[in-house]
């Protein structure tokens, strides 16, 4: 009896043209839109075109929406840039959420407690330094344990998140206005002390410019600095790093201080630049979403602008669909899920090829 041959096999591609890879990605997005359109039609009987229009509206309805979109991108991008050096070093920092939150808490505390003690510009500076320091400490602790005793950084950074969340919950309770409401409310609403000022009439412009600068700095740091080179060697192979005399412990600690400090910066931008308050949900899962943004962009800071745009666009669109069309949030999450599935899935076709087993047809 002759057995059937396998129908196809999978082979790794050596290399793919840049434009071809992007063509595959665009096709994947188109497929994603068709499938999510189909799903939404089957589930809700609404016209998929209408859903897409609503999603588009969620980001680009008017100038205010666009500024909001840019602000959303900026914060997510900032956290993504923060986790990138750690991930490039193969240090699984999933504690960005907590690092950003604790940074935000320090900023909020300064706003609350130092109001009137110094001019606003000095307060902002103090807040900035404090936030970055707090984030850096939150990143440093797991790094020291990893470097000295080889503890698992994934669990450690994850648990640090919960510590940060609980601390913030505690203070939101203590400082709640009015007492017992469980909310701090907008801090210094009248004086606006400690608020990042509007630039050219745009209140989010400073945030956006700061994050753009960080993008360029991280790009240069990773690609052209000795530190960046060392951390990629440590990430690729710790043995090689030891072999050429890199102090692996030092690099781990140094990189996590940087990663944590940038998360702290994101927390500062959130509190001083947009929210002007703090609660345990201020970072809103960006610490985790950032991991996806960073990996999707293959650790390239400039590609991260695009990937964070995509994620924020989807989130905002989904929210808009939920409110405008009376569908609940879960439905928009389904659509977001479908689109992200296709986008991540298409990387498989960029890295691998599927071949039909090209053997003769006749049997002997």
């Amino acid at each position, binding site marked *: 009896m*002759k*057995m*059937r*041959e*396998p129908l196809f*096999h999978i*082979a*790794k*591609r*050596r290399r793919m043209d840049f434009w071809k890879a992007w063509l595959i990605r665009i096709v994947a997005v188109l497929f994603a839109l068709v499938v999510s359109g189909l799903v939404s039609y089957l589930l809700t009987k609404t016209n998929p075109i209408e859903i897409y229009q609503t999603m588009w509206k969620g980001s680009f309805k008017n100038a205010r929406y666009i500024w909001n979109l840019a602000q959303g991108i900026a914060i997510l991008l900032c956290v993504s840039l923060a986790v990138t050096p750690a991930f490039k070093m193969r240090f699984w920092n999933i504690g960005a959420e907590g690092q950003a939150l604790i940074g935000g808490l320090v900023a909020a505390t300064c706003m609350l407690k130092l109001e009137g003690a110094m001019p606003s510009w000095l307060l902002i500076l103090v807040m900035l330094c404090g936030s970055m320091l707090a984030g850096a400490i939150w990143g440093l602790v797991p790094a020291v344990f990893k470097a000295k005793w080889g503890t698992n950084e994934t669990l450690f950074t994850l648990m640090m998140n919960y510590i940060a969340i609980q601390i913030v919950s505690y203070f939101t309770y203590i400082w709640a206005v009015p007492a017992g409401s469980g909310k701090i409310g907008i801090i210094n609403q009248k004086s606006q002390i400690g608020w990042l000022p509007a630039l050219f009439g745009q209140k989010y412009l400073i945030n956006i410019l700061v994050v753009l600068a960080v993008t360029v700095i991280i790009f240069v740091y990773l690609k*052209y*600095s*000795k*530190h960046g*080179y*060392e951390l*990629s*060697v440590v990430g*690729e*192979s710790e*043995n*090689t790093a*030891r*072999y*050429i*005399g890199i*102090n692996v412990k030092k690099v781990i600690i140094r990189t996590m201080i940087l990663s944590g400090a940038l998360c702290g910066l994101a927390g500062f931008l959130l509190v001083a630049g947009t929210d002007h308050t703090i609660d345990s949900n201020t970072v809103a899962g960006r610490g985790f979403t950032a991991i996806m943004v960073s990996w999707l962009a293959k650790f390239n800071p400039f590609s991260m602008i695009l990937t964070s745009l995509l994620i924020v666009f989807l989130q905002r669109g989904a929210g808009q669909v939920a409110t405008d069309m009376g569908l609940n949030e879960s439905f928009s999450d389904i659509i977001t899920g479908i689109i992200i599935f296709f986008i991540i899935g298409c990387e498989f076709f960029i890295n691998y090829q599927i071949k039909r*087993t*090209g*053997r003769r047809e006749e*049997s*002997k």
Partner: protein
Amino acid sequence: MSAAIELRGITKVFGTIVANDDVNLTVNRGEILSILGENGSGKTTLMNMIAGIYFPDKGQIFIDGKEVCIRSPKDAFDYKIGMIHQHFKLVDVFTATENIVLGLEDGERFNLKKAAEKVRQISSRYGFEIDPDKKIYEMSVSEKQTVEIIKVLYRGADILILDEPTAVLTPQETQKLFAVLRKMRQGGKSIIIITHKLHEVLALSDRVSVLCKGKYIGTVTTKDTNESELTEMMVGKKVMLNIERSMPKDPQVRLEVHGLDCHDREGVKVLDNVNFTARSGEILGIAGIAGSGQRELLEAIAGLQHITDGEILYHDPKSDAIENLRDKTPMQIRELGVRLSFVPEDRLGMGLVGNMDITDNMMLRSYRRGKGAFLHRKAPRDLAETIIEQLEVVTPGVTTPVRNLSGGNVQKVLVGREIAAAPTVLMAAYPVRGLDINSSYMIYNLLNEQKEKGVAVIFVGEDLDVLIELCDRILVIGSGQVTGLVDGRTATKEEIGFLMTKSVHREEETANENA
């Protein structure tokens, strides 16, 4: 009578690399066939297709004259084909018997007593020495190999494929294995043995099939051929088998190792009172069974291994100062002005970074140079270009990640970088492992060049013929101890082989741990 296995027009392509191109092959019952070819000639790929690990892109496989389709190792077992891989696939914490019955679907898996009895029967029939209840982690390499062979015999294999079975064995163990294989041949089994060692081919097999760069060259009957004919088939052209060796010029002590002891993480002694000197202008060979402490010795000198006792003294050729390198990090050693180059055994895991391009790999040694926080890529890029040109590295360019290069080219990049550092001591661990003959000779020549420049070269090798031809002196270690020091010009293979195994018998336990 039809052949046990016949391959017709087998072709396998990986990406753009043609691993096997239209290969034809037959193996008869009761025959030992050698598949001979340099590294990278497609021997293992071809055998993996018979064993069901790969599926051919083109071509047919016949077993006893019937065309078959082998899609998985299980299919291969159903056709009574068993492969013993170069890297053993055993569960360390299981006993021999447990490993042997692992994966079987019938009830025998749960009747270990009966299984152990069957293992003993197979052992006595073919003359294996094995304790079915011994755990794998307590076994020597040769015992592990025995378990692998019994595993396929247990499943009733009639066709056995052995991938480089002698690579990890001592000459004595090799003889034992050959005796067993001959017995199997008498019992009517077909045996395919993959190798690139000519003398083994001539000693063991009935016929030899030769592959060269994925192409099938031909099959000859062993008794009608000789080494030079086979070499010619294998490499396509005649190569000089002699390695040039000059007399050391004005040798001076460069490195002295006194009473060196090292322990591994589990606290097992891996180096035990090692003493030797390396002199400038000579090549010191280090011979020993794989895992006898060679890696630890070189890493201890390079500052990568914790030293429990002893000292490593470096004699500076310029100032005549003597520095103790013990307990110094690689960075501190370099800061002392010690120009120590090291070609480690694990090229892509230690010597180089696979995902980085050639320029960035050149920079590993030199990136700290230059002022400021930023990298200076110009000098390393120039060095990369020089090495590509001088050592004939085959690569699309300096920006190609080194993992995309073939084994020989990877090694040229690594050796080139280490030599470019103008060392006074050059250590190389298995620098020609996995390289074809031409690349190997290029490496030998580079080592010789360094020797003539007055560098103290330490060469850890596995091919005794090469060690005897290349080295001025050969240090033999067994189970982490120095078991002898011989003159490369007068030593014989048998002598070294004997020294390699000398202490293994005395301290069997340690040897097993090390293996």
